[in-house]
């Protein structure tokens, strides 16, 4: 899929495009900082960390809007849990150390309730990805996890046998969707061409087909200040 997308982008931008993926968010940020990447699709809270070093290129449109949520999921056999505060003494899976939905939100919610995650849960561990978090809960490795709604919904389409082993306890408020950002070192032409290509993907059949495989509606112009609530939340927890 990524190779199809990269060749699509290469054709429309008029230069070769190579996708690079990393397990950990910090790796991606490091590569951006060291000019090893020209553009990246990063989660919202990492974006906050590098907001001053990158330019916002585009924001994916999901279900008609550039927004997503966090789902609190538990194992499907757990019918009782209604809130994260009922998960005392359980094993909890975090996504990444700088994930918004997968790390920031649960700690934020516990902090709001006056709980410390280190003592509230019996054990926590990182899965280094929302998809892995869903798997961890589905397999029973973790009792609960907070995951990206976009990831859970996409998995529901391609791997319902996994998501069916989980149950969504609650859905969070909406947050701005993880954006696509460009390194400040790339030329304005490349920046604009990339942006224009992404915006126009929904206008041609090949682009629409890729978007449908990405489970997105398209890309839109984003504003850095839209992400301010995320930064506020990070400050509240002490991550920034």
């Amino acid at each position: 899929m990524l190779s199809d997308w990269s060749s699509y982008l290469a054709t429309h931008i008029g230069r070769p495009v190579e996708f690079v993926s990393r397990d950990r968010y910090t790796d991606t940020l490091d590569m951006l900082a060291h000019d090893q990447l020209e553009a990246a699709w990063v989660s919202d809270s990492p974006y906050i960390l590098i907001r001053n070093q990158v330019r916002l290129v585009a924001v994916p449109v999901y279900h008609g809007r550039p927004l997503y949520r966090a789902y609190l999921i538990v194992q499907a056999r757990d019918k009782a849990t209604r809130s994260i505060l009922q998960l005392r003494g359980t094993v909890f899976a975090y996504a990444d150390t700088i994930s918004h939905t997968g790390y920031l939100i649960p700690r934020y919610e516990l902090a709001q309730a006056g709980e410390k995650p280190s003592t509230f849960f019996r054990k926590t561990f990182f899965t280094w990805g929302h998809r892995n978090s869903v798997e961890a809960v589905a397999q029973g490795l973790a009792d609960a996890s907070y995951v990206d709604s976009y990831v859970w919904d996409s998995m529901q389409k391609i791997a319902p046998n996994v998501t069916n082993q989980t149950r969504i306890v609650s859905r969070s408020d909406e947050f701005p969707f993880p954006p696509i950002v460009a390194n400040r070192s790339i030329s304005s032409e490349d920046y604009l061409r990339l942006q224009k290509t992404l915006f126009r993907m929904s206008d041609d059949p090949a682009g629409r087909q890729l978007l449908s495989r990405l489970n997105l509606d398209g890309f839109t112009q984003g504003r850095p200040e839209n992400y301010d609530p995320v930064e506020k939340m990070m400050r509240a927890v002490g991550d920034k």
Partner: protein
Amino acid sequence: MSPLDLSFRFKLPLWGAVLILLTALAVSTSSLIQAYDELKEDQAMDAEVLSNSLVSIVFPLMLHDNVWRAFETIANPVRNIRPGNLTKVEAILVLDQKSKVFVSSHPQAAPLLSDLASLGPDYAWLAERLNRPGHPPVTQVLEPPGSHYIYFLTPVTRNDATLGTLVLVSNRSAFLSRFTEMAWHSALIGGVVLAILLPFNWYWGQRMARPLVQLTQRMGQIGKTLPESLDPRMYQARDELGRLFDTYNKMLEELREKSELERQMVQSERLAALGQLAAGVAHEINNPLGGMLTAIDTLKCHVGIDPRMARTIALIERGLLQIKDTVAALLVEASLKSRNLGHHDIEDIRTLVSAPVHKKALCLDWDNRLKDEIPLPASLIRQILINLILNAIHAAAQSGIVTMEIACVGEELRLAVWNDGKILNDEEIGHLFEPFSPLSEGGHGLGLWVTYQIVHQLGGNISAKRADGQMLFSVRIPLGATT
């Protein structure tokens, strides 16, 4: 009847079959035991290799409390089981130093941080062993009693730092099914070998036993009758059994010769006794007969005998003469001095008998091989030959064949006469040379008696036997014999 008394026909093949079965059983059992041990060793090796490679990956993950990567690492070998794998890994657990679950491939059954002992009786048994101090830093194979699983415990160690234990859970069934498969293969091969060997053994046993059985039966008959010889084709090998066959047949041959000899002896003794008796009676008759004939002669010389008396005297005289002839015939006197026998004597006889030969339209095959004179009395040999030839002509069928051979072989004269007439049985042949033979038709039955007496007085012998559907009379007389 004890099984030891069983016939060789059954005993040999049965013994063979028992030995073959025992051998096959012993060989396959030992190979199965060996295969079992090797399989077990292979399985342990398999598990050890897997455990060690997992440990090397899991160690840093434990060090960094990377539960998810550890889970991915151990879940993989459990999910991807190759069908031929000896070690069917059912589950993998990684325990921390307190024997609590750090991560397991089946978190539902073995949740994180749960106590090993709380996971079930097998695990409680393992926990008890694990808590014993000083277990070696190598893979241990543990089989809890009554369990369906085999556990391979490997310490998660690097550079003397031990973080916990990796537990590999393997199902016994994979091992057992593999072993069963091997056992079946070996049974199949054994079956094929038996299917070849057993019929062969049966055939061989029968082949060995059948001649023995027949030999035993024949030997059992000896004493009552003389059994037949054994067919040498039945057993052609030159081993002890083959030699036994030869010896048996040789013994039978000797027995037959002996019995034939006895029969001949009895016959010649009987004939000798008869000869003595006849001679005695003849002498006793001859004396008064001579007197009576002299008296008749004297009486005839007297005059004045009326014709009726003369006829009576003549009647008595003829009667007495006939008695004299008969007695003379009985009392064979071969004391006649004679010239030597020559070729022409035999030819004379051919001429003499030509009339009856023509009369019966016989084919007379005459083979006279005498050349020079031989030192035997011509008149006696002629008499022998005439008697035999006339007998043969008489016995031969109408238009039949009579064969005569005479030759001088070495130091004896050999004479043989065949006819294709009635074939006599042993009983008849036995009494053939007795006087007044009932077999004589139209004669007084003294011809062969006389011949026999002459031959014996010449020191030879005469015999009658069946040969190729003909009756053969053969005579042997040593040269130079006189009475």
